[in-house]
């Protein structure tokens, strides 16, 4: 490795950029390093300054999400002994990652070559293979001179913490969907047909977009301001979504997209519409968006692509008009809505 931490300077403080897969595996990473006795510094929320710094450090054509990542590394580099950046390979052809996640450690090493930012990393060949994942983390711990027993204990605690976090999110998503179904049922009994449940929107976006306030905040705010309720597709039970995604596509190569696709299939009858958000120019999404639009034709879908220049006004207009359309449909405004019970034949 270009900037591997050397033996003379043991790593005591490790930095984790609050970007990309931190939003998926962050709890695991943080718990693991804390349990092996290191001080963990997670970078702050994304800000305009972070994005601008990342933009300046990146190749122009790189995607927004990776520029944000670079910005976070830049913000961390002076506070820590080493930055933790794992490499996710795609040995599993059905549960791989965008090659960006594979190249990140080397990308950061080369980008910050002059500053000599130390990177600690590990090679995660197959994220669905629990044994290999464990072996990779234990190997990292041994490189950090952590005793084996402590490392094993730390990894166990980290996996449990991540599972608990995932379960909490999945429960939250399931509860929202159940509550909205109840609301709709009650609303449908209104004899005057005046009471309408707020539209339930499935936000199909990679976790690092959906849970980054700077990137996606304008969209979620606009949705909520327009009276919609949001369920994040990446929070729906991962294992179930992954399994279900094979009904969506056999050859889709990316784990994160599979989880989104599975969630969309599962909830397609429960939600009123889908808002898809992707970062410009996202490789997997350039095909996945098209696939989803072609395969879920019965559902209204709003597709938003965001880049570093995005202003909030344009997003607001599009979100508002989308919600207006959904409301109109709910009220039976479109011909196909005549099939909705209680509203058929009244127009």
């Amino acid at each position: 490795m270009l900037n591997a931490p050397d033996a003379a300077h043991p790593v005591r403080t490790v930095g984790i950029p609050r970007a990309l897969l931190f939003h998926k595996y962050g709890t695991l990473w943080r718990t693991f390093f804390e349990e092996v006795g290191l001080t963990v510094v997670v970078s702050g929320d994304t800000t305009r300054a972070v994005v601008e710094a990342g933009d300046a450090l990146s190749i122009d054509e790189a995607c927004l999400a990776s520029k944000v990542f670079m910005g976070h590394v830049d913000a961390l580099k002076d506070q820590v002994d080493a930055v933790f950046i794992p490499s996710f390979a795609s040995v599993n052809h059905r549960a791989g990652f965008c090659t960006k996640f594979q190249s990140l450690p080397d990308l950061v090493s080369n980008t910050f070559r002059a500053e000599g930012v130390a990177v600690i990393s590990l090679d995660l060949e197959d994220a669905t293979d629990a044994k290999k994942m464990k072996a990779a983390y234990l190997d990292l711990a041994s490189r950090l001179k952590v005793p084996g027993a402590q490392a094993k204990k730390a990894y166990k605690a980290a996996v449990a913490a991540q599972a608990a976090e995932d379960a909490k999110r999945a429960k939250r998503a399931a509860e929202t969907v159940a509550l909205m179904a109840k609301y709709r049922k009650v609303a449908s009994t209104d004899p005057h047909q005046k009471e309408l449940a707020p539209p339930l929107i499935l936000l199909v976006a990679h976790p690092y977009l959906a849970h980054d306030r700077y990137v996606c905040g304008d969209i979620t705010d606009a949705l909520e301001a327009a009276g919609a309720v949001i369920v994040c597709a990446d929070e729906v039970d991962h294992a179930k979504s992954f399994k279900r995604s094979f009904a969506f596509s056999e050859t889709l190569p990316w784990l994160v997209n599979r989880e989104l696709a599975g969630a969309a299939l599962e909830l397609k009858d429960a939600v009123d519409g889908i808002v898809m958000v992707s970062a410009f120019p996202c490789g997997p999404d350039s095909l996945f968006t098209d696939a989803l639009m072609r395969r879920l034709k019965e559902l209204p879908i709003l597709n938003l692509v965001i880049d570093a220049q995005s202003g909030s006004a344009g997003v607001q207009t599009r979100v508002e008009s989308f919600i207006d359309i959904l409301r109109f449909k709910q009220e039976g405004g479109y011909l196909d809505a005549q099939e909705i019970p209680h509203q058929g034949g009244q127009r």
Partner: protein
Amino acid sequence: MLKKFRIKAGSADGADAPSFKGTSAKDLRKRFRKDRHKDKKVAVFRYAYYAPAFKFFVEQVLDCDYLALPPATKRTMELGIQSSTDDVCTPFKHMMGDWIEALERGANVLVQVGGPCRLGFYGEMQEEILRDMGYDFTMLNFSHGIEQGYVGWAKEVMKMVNPDINVPHGVKQLLACGHMMTKLDQARDLYMTCAGFETKPGACKRAWEGLLDALEGCTSAKEVDAAYSAFAAQMRAVPLDKPARPIRIGIIGEMYTAIDMESNLDLDEKLMGMGVEVHRMLNFTNRYTHYNEPNLRRGISEYVTYDMGPTTTLTLAAAKEYAERGFDGLIHAKCTGCTPEIDAMPVLRSLSKDFKIPILYLTYDTETSDTGLMTRLEAFYDMLAMKKEAQLR
């Protein structure tokens, strides 16, 4: 029915039994040999100079009819653009154009390969788009069966295209097909180092095109070798006027764009036309047949620790080798939005700084203009030539 009756009648009275005299067992076997050929028209996308190998694959391995595509035109590109999403990578658009033209010309089967990046999802998406457009066909998509490797692919071929394939013969011919690709790459390497310095314009190109024609007719590995030998002899006979230290440029980059002349607007020929010795380590042989990624990565371990993407290791290893061999410059060619090659660029920058080797970065999309490219190449060439002159002085 009649035949059956006659034999039966013959055997009944014993006098009129059908005679098999003069018909050896071998002839009989020949008479009843199963016809394994399928009259399906199989098309493969246009890709660089590999059409003879694709033809060989279809005819000798799949045992079907090969549908040859004429050279791509502007219409091909337009068809591709119209049927693809905007932000998908450019090879997807090129291939969509190829598929539509192939289907118009009567193809029943389209062959798509699988791959480690977006390419792995190309087949499924292209099939869906074409079906939505109303075309009827079979897609042989090697993204299916990829988990089981060759066994999975063989099953896929037999399921989708030709269930009667003679498997041992098919395996033998598949190896011969790989051999043809190796020979094609070898021939291209020879061609690219010579053609810039020929004294009789077009002599090398004639030899190269003659080789492609000869390979189109090959049915075995032996014939491939013979065709290559003839080509090599022809090339050695071409008089060259090559300076002792010619300008040497290495082309590196993404698997499709850096090789395919349709996509990179004849980058090789443009450089050779300026009198440059062109090298390109990136080809089918070095990426598939002889590819050992972990070992290749050892040589660039001061720059990278992990595999960074489908062709990134090869890009970086080639760049370093060319730099160490004292090449004058490198050209990095890729299509818009190719993530692995974008990720190679910061590493190339480090490399360029360390070895003081200039790199021209080219990003191709469907709107890239030929003239614009020529201007950039000429400027790059002039810079290299001036640098070289100063060095030699």
